[in-house]
């Protein structure tokens, strides 16, 4: 190893960084801490979210602190930062990666339970959004209204994914571990701890 690499290796906790960098997430350690991302970030404007802090904690190896906190769930996934960052750090992909790591360690509780509702649509129907999502008080009515509206617009009835496709999707749900994950989330049992509000 050359001198710079040795110095860097001693300085940062590479194992956590490497884990956080899977899925082709690029250039995290090239962050200059310039603040351009925070200055342009909608999440930073509306919450305590500060990406520079998160990146620092990852590089310092403060694993539990980062993964257990609500901070990583504030990102809008809007890529505004990426368009401003001089080092082209792919922040939103990196945040998604941290969210996955948090789930693998059993964090994310309440937030994930809300999100899993969309996923249960997918498990049953092969689509994520149903007409009833926008009229929870009257799900059958919402579907009927949509069928009527589509007819008026000269469109075929609402999309129904074919039996053949649903069969293939079932395999995907099982193989990716998605079905199990959603099941755990919706069971209401405490598989996932609530996020920490302190950061």
């Amino acid at each position: 190893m050359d001198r710079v690499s040795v110095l860097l290796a001693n300085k940062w906790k590479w194992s956590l960084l490497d884990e956080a960098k899977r899925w082709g997430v690029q250039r995290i350690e090239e962050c200059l801490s310039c603040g351009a991302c925070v200055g342009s970030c909608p999440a930073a404007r509306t919450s305590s979210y500060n990406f520079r802090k998160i990146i620092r904690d990852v590089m310092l190896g403060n694993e539990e602190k980062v993964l257990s906190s609500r901070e990583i769930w504030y990102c809008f996934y809007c890529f505004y930062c990426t368009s401003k960052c001089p080092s082209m750090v792919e922040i939103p992909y990196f945040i998604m990666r941290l969210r996955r790591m948090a789930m693998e360690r059993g964090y994310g509780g309440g937030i994930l339970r809300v999100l899993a509702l969309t996923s249960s649509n997918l498990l049953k129907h092969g689509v994520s959004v149903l007409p009833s999502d926008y009229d929870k008080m009257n799900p059958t009515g919402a579907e009927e209204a949509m069928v009527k509206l589509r007819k008026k617009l000269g469109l075929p009835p609402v999309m129904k994914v074919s039996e053949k496709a649903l069969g293939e999707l079932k395999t995907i749900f099982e193989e990716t571990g998605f079905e199990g994950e959603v099941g755990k989330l919706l069971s209401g049992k405490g598989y996932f701890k609530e996020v920490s509000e302190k950061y």
Partner: protein
Amino acid sequence: MVNEKWLEKIPADGPFYLFQGCFINHNYPGIEAATRFILDKLGVRYFVSEDQSCCGLPEFSTLANPLMLTCLVGRNMDVVKEYAPYILTPCNGCYSAFHTSFTLMKDPEVAARTEEILGKLGRKYSPVKVIHFADFVYKRLEDIVVKTVKILGGLKMAAHYGCHYFVFEEEGLDSRENPSFAEKIIEKLGGEPVNYTAKDECCGFGMIQQVVHKNMAYAITEEKINSILDAGAEAVLVICPYCLNVLDKNQKVLRDIELIEKAIPVIHISQLVALVLGADPDRMGFEMHSVDVKPFLDRVEARKVEFKGWSSAEVAASPK
């Protein structure tokens, strides 16, 4: 600045597989009706199939599951291949699902597992070219203008592109910093494009924030709408059903608590183009919009003089 190289590679005539996004299909069918109307008017062939599923982006953006995205995208592309060489979508979410999947597949571990799972279905992951409907409109803009029977009588319109239109791995039709092609579309259709400060910002949806941290979502929509109103716009043009939903529905809440002075209609590019091509306004699905679109519709006027084609100077100056 419009990227000429990107534009060249957009197939002008299809045939397309018209990707059925859940959100359009189940909540904004007006966008689907308008898109089909335009394709029919331009004589472009398209196909749909019930073997298609959700694009997979919701499963990545909510439960951060990369394999769900790559497998659903891979499976859908394999289905599409039986019908057409290109995918066309009027949704930024579906559009970015494909491109995000291409990025994730660069990770060897994700790629290997995806191939393995798709293999069990007797399918393969092989990329199909995905075209955003807004790019297609820009590509065919001259043909569209020639066929228009109505015109935006000088209506001031603010364009909102939406975050997930911009694909970072590749270049895209325009840059996020100061995109201009939607403004050119507004201008060519007789409107007056309005530039506003928050042009490149998020609508407020934030993938999960509209559900998880609602106050944050509303705050960002408020900034966006106020910036649009300050610039004097009379309507907003969007190219994504989610942006339409958030900018439109959040205004109702923001009006109730008086954070915005007035509400402004939000129109999807397919609805705008279909209308000037002569589609019945009653068949654009405006029932699903919460802000009244009448002030917008009132400004869509019948062309008084028949369009006689482009002058040679105009042809030279028009977007290619």
